[in-house]
């Protein structure tokens, strides 16, 4: 995953070279796959969901996969992104292109707040504190119903037309909507890729690998954790903005800890610590839920069992396990 300066390059087979090229252009590869997605899945609504949750989980992966911090409260940032987009458009009358950056900025501020408290703790404590603080956000949203719509959810901000360089585009059309939202995803993918390739990207991996050593190397570990918490929250909030524009409502459940749990499930399913894992995990989870819930109303038992199996036997997720199995890929690691 980490980009290494080219030293003595071992001789690569053509397939290995192809793989190397693909992972060097991982953003492009992701975008091509995403562009095909709506034509492969049974419905456009499902494809948009993969897009949205892919971005949310990708942001979460920065924290969980790359830095090793198991947050159980990431719904707070997904929800905050969605709510603030909706509130900015519906209540304050802002256009969507102003509402989205505002929502991301405010969600990042929320991440700074929650991060300041939670990064003071370590290990399991961190998980529980993030969980409880996110629940606090949930209850605040429930109570502040004049702003959020409370239990009824936020509505009344349907974006039906988007003006692109003077060209009005019907945003209710599922295909248009998908590709416009894909632009958000592309931006998020690019930013995530830059972060991972940056010096800071190396720092968070070092912290995950060995926090004590990272500190002894001269890194302010607590501050780094706070920064990555904010970055992670910001990227997940992008997914929230997309969700608000897509559904034209914000359900209160988007802040609930079960949403956080779903995000964790998705990243584990796809493979933490990998660039493609989050989207693969989101797609697998959502398709699975779609298919299994058609067989039986007890789809949760299947989802739960699959999750248990992954924790026990495939902790690296689908993509991680695939990489381990592929000699082509192993040379890259």
């Amino acid at each position, binding site marked *: 995953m*980490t*980009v*290494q*300066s080219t*030293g*003595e390059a071992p001789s690569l087979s053509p397939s290995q070279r192809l793989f190397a090229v693909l992972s060097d252009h991982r953003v492009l590869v992701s975008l091509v796959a995403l562009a095909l997605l709506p034509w492969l899945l049974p419905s456009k609504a499902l494809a948009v969901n993969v897009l949205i949750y892919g971005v949310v989980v990708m942001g979460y992966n920065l924290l969980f996969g790359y830095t090793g911090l198991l947050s159980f409260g990431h719904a707070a940032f997904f929800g905050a992104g969605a709510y603030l987009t909706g509130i900015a458009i519906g209540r304050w009358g802002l256009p969507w292109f102003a509402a989205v950056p505002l929502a991301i900025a405010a969600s990042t501020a929320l991440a700074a707040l929650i991060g300041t408290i939670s990064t003071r703790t370590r290990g399991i404590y961190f998980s529980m504190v993030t969980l409880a603080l996110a629940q606090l956000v949930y209850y605040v949203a429930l109570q502040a119903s004049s702003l959020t719509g409370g239990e009824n959810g936020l509505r009344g901000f349907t974006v039906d037309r988007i003006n692109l360089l003077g060209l009005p585009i019907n945003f209710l059309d599922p295909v248009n909507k998908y590709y416009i939202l894909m632009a958000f995803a592309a931006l998020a993918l690019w930013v995530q890729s*830059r*972060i991972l*390739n*940056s*010096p*800071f*990207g*190396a*720092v968070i*991996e*070092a912290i995950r*690998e*060995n926090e*004590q*050593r*990272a*500190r*002894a*190397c*001269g*890194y*302010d*570990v607590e*501050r*780094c954790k706070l*920064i990555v918490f904010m*970055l992670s929250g910001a990227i997940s909030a992008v997914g929230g903005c997309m969700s608000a524009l897509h559904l034209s409502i914000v359900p209160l459940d988007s802040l609930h800890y079960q949403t956080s749990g779903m995000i964790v499930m998705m990243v584990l399913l796809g493979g933490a610590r990998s660039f493609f894992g989050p989207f693969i995990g989101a797609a697998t989870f959502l398709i699975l839920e779609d298919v299994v819930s058609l067989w039986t109303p007890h789809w949760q038992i299947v989802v739960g069992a699959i999750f248990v199996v992954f924790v026990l036997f495939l902790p690296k997720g689908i993509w991680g396990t695939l990489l381990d199995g592929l000699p082509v890929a192993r040379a890259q*690691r």
Partner: protein
Amino acid sequence: MSTALLQAEGIGRRFGGFTALEDISVSFARGELTSIIGPNGAGKSTFFNILSGTLSPSMGTLRFKGRELNGMPQHRFVHQGISRSYQITNIFPDLSVHENVRVAAQAMRVSYDIWRRRADLVELSERADAALASVGLIGKRGEQAKFLAHGQQRALEIAIALVSEPELLLLDEPTAGMGPEETKEMVALLERLAERRTVLLVEHKMKMVLGLSQRVIVLHHGRLLADGKPEEIRGNPDVRRVYLGQSEGYG
């Protein structure tokens, strides 16, 4: 005393009701290789952890190049010029050998840059390679650190500590768990390192310490028992009684 690089005055440390360290005052001159010895529970590790910022002292002051270090968080110590290794191998196991050292080098320059490409920071990569070369690991630079042999991992940790170009290098039992062959290589490495910087060692292997060090400090029950040249320590009756007699097996 103006030449002292690091100066400890009346250092003490308590854990709850237990006093691990009491009233230690020593100073370390530039260019010396000093070893700290003492039987188990003598307070070596506590003292070492205080010198490297891992623990803060309950009392006393610590000065580095005349600047007080009390209350400074651990990560700032490296930036002052104090770098350490750990008794139990402490590296980044899943990263490549090169990345292990490169990320340590990076700490001295950039921490929070989220936008530049790290591959563009060529100078850091070169410095990492130089550090690897100096501990003889350059041939392994592409391997995952956890697959190195034990002795090589210890050398890697020293490279990590070295790459910050510390004025004071603190090494906690660098030969722990090593066989005679690996130990010999490590001693040679330590001698080379000591030529250019101040080194402080915590060690168990008596013979090695006495042969290698210019100065030896002996701790016992959290107090300073002896401080002097190796030959003085060898002749010190107190040291013989509490330490040398018991640790024949380490010799």
